[in-house]
């Protein structure tokens, strides 16, 4: 240091004082860190904010509990909200296992608004390392093949502390992400302003986060209610249109590239990857050329899957009217619990027939 008028004994005294102070601060912060890990305390606190959205934290916690209960994870469902609402892992497990103690353990990691690029990011850096599944099933619907304002959400996602380290790896980003993923005390970042903002109107406002308002079961499935007939009667759906003709395949390039990367990431871990068409309500394929439009969409995905060497499953077998009951949907793409049960059962039957030995083997791990 520059010339100092402080004597060496004085400096030693000050250094000792600083060291004691630092130790005390570390002890207090460490104590708070431990308290934050007590489940009863955590339950009373807001959802942690280490990822771009709280839904990821909720899913991760659910997955952790599942892994603690079963010690393994066999099938992981990934995708957007159509996966989250339309695939019920409990139904899947019981159909594949035939009831009783599950022969397979599946988990639904679908998240609202996640287009293929976002699915790829979280799959590669979060779900695969944590869940270590033997089979990954990615669900997709027609609209997710095209860039949209929802797809642009990816830019916002990668501004998250942890997510930015995944997308832009580096020592500093990596260390920051590690710290945030490790220390609970860092995981409540920004909760004070959010809590204060809730009082803006004079009464504590309802939490806007979907994760707090909706029910998600222990397997990550989020049932969607009410049914489409009720929704239509209440005129809650507006500006809905049938899916257009798949004219320009170049538009799908980014989405297909993201799916390709997801499949490769899954295979690198030794797991199997399957792409699944998540059926939409028949309205989406209505019109004189509805069958042709649906066939073109399925042909594209099938050809893509063949070229990449993974399975593509379509439980509708090319029939655009396979899912047309308003009681099976909540809107034109999210299914009601009845619809989810039917679709999941069909999917489970397909997978059981194709991968039964693998599932049985994995259950014996």
């Amino acid at each position, binding site marked *: 240091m520059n010339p100092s008028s402080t004597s060496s004994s004085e400096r030693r005294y000050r250094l000792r004082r600083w060291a004691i102070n630092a130790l005390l601060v570390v002890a207090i912060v460490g104590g708070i860190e431990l308290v934050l890990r007590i489940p009863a305390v955590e339950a009373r606190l807001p959802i942690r904010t280490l990822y771009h959205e709280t839904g990821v934290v909720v899913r991760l916690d659910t997955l952790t509990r599942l892994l603690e209960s079963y010690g393994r994870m066999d099938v992981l469902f990934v995708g957007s909200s159509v996966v989250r609402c339309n695939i019920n892992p409990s139904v899947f497990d019981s159909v594949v296992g035939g009831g009783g103690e599950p022969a397979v353990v599946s988990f639904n990691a679908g998240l609202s608004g996640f287009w293929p690029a976002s699915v790829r990011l979280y799959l590669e850096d979060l779900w695969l390392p944590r869940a270590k599944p033997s089979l990954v099933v990615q669900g997709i619907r027609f609209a997710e093949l095209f860039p949209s304002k929802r797809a642009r959400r990816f830019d916002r996602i990668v501004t998250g502390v942890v997510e930015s380290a995944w997308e832009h790896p580096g020592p500093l980003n990596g260390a920051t992400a590690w710290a945030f993923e490790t220390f609970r005390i860092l995981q409540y970042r920004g909760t004070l302003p959010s809590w204060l903002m809730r009082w*803006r*109107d*004079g009464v504590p406002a309802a939490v806007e986060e979907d994760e707090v308002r909706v029910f998600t079961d222990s397997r990550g499935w989020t049932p969607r209610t009410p049914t489409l007939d009720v929704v239509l009667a209440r005129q809650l759906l507006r500006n809905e249109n049938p899916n257009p003709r798949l004219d320009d395949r170049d538009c799908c390039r980014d989405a297909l590239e993201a799916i390709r990367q997801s499949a490769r990431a899954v295979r690198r871990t030794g797991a199997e990857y399957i792409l699944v068409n998540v059926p939409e309500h028949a309205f989406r394929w209505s019109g004189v050329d509805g069958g042709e439009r649906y066939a073109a969409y399925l042909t594209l995905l099938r050809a893509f899957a063949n070229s990449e060497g993974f399975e593509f499953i379509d439980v509708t077998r090319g029939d655009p009217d396979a899912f047309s009951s308003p009681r099976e949907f909540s809107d034109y793409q999210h299914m009601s619990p009845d619809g989810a049960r039917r679709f999941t059962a069909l999917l489970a039957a397909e997978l059981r027939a194709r991968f039964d030995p693998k599932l049985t083997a994995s259950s014996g791990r």
Partner: protein
Amino acid sequence: MLFNTPQYFFFFCFTLLAYYALPHRKQNLLLLALSYVFYGSWDWRFLSLLWLSTVIDYVAGLKIHRARELQRPRAMRAALLLSVGGQLIILGFFKYYNFFADSLMAMLDRFGMHPSLPLLHVVLPVGISFYTFQTMSYTIDIYRGAFTPTRNFVDFALSVAFFPHLVAGPIQRARSLIVQIERPRIVTCDYWERGLTLFAIGLIRKVAIADPAGALADAYFANPAAYTSVPLACGLFLYGFQIYNDFAGYSEMARGSANLMGFDLMRNFRHPYFARNISDFWQRWHISLSTWLRDYLYIPLGGNRRGPVRTRVNLMITMLLGGLWHGASWNFVIWGGLHGTYLVGYHSWREWRARHGITGDSREASALGAVASAIGVYVLVTFTWLFFRSHDMATTSAYLTGLFSFQPGGEGAIVPVLVLALMTMCIDVPQALSDNEHMLVEWRPAVRAAFVAAGLLLLLLSGNVGNEPFIYFQF
């Protein structure tokens, strides 16, 4: 590069390491170069303006001094005019030209004339109001014979550009800073403890109190018509917390940074919301500006030496110009005018009491009166922030309408006000009671550690480190 960003942390760590490794003269060169890097990180083009301002006052300072030695008062005045006029032209051109041109056109429009004056489309250079005032104090002090100019250009340039105080003060008197620049600094453990304490407290003020308060206040000011009286009143209190903690936090971080390099910058705030009267408030709020206005405007105008009427006129002029210093907008003029009115009222009341022989109350009545007076001043100052914060008269009018509509509802909006008030008081009360802004240093280790841990926790919970600029950067 804001003080509350990781970029500043790395910049400052590098600065300190290099600074401690160098001898005194080279330290000054290093600080000058890094100060220009710091300023250039906003917009390198405005460096030329900073240099121009520096050169004008460096030359003017030497010329004034030379003329004084040769006993040539006219040359002294001419050099002073060059300095003050040059600085005011720079400030006026960039900060006030559009305001005056706009106002002139609006006025002529009322008389049926429709002139079309060209308007500037330039960004206000960061910190221009601060460094022009500081350099003006340099030449005025030399003109008054209070100070001998430095011949070392690097030392003078560093006094202007020294990065901790460059963009938002404190508006340091050149003479006090140049003396510190000219002498070798001794960075003792005391400086380290004081510097770190001040920086930490400033950071907590900014990130944990000012930014959340600002987010809430912004919501009320964005659409005042949507809220009832209580939330709108809360909005004013929240803005009061925001601007105080934002600016005091900035000043403390600036002074803390300077301390770590062995410099002492002047104190800018002395818990102003505990002021007992409006005059006391101005001795506690933005002290570097209020003392500047006192020394270089109010006293030269005659101060209180030319009778009661002239004293009041001088007060009003000082406060109106003080308001205008903050920005080229009628809202700031009204804000300054209101504070001027309060000061005039306070002085009149004091004189009335003196005329009627009312010198003091009993001890109890005096204590009660002091508390009531402090609360009254706080409420008055908080209400007046409305004019400071509103960007236009329409917002002010809508806010006032909602505030005085006395519509019921929204009482819960007081919760964030209480939380943020408590957080502010946790810093201000210990500082005020001990009359020591570095009170942490004196505390017992356990209490100090608890305070630091609580501050750390608040910073983590606030989370938006570096996202919000400081309010006074716009001035």
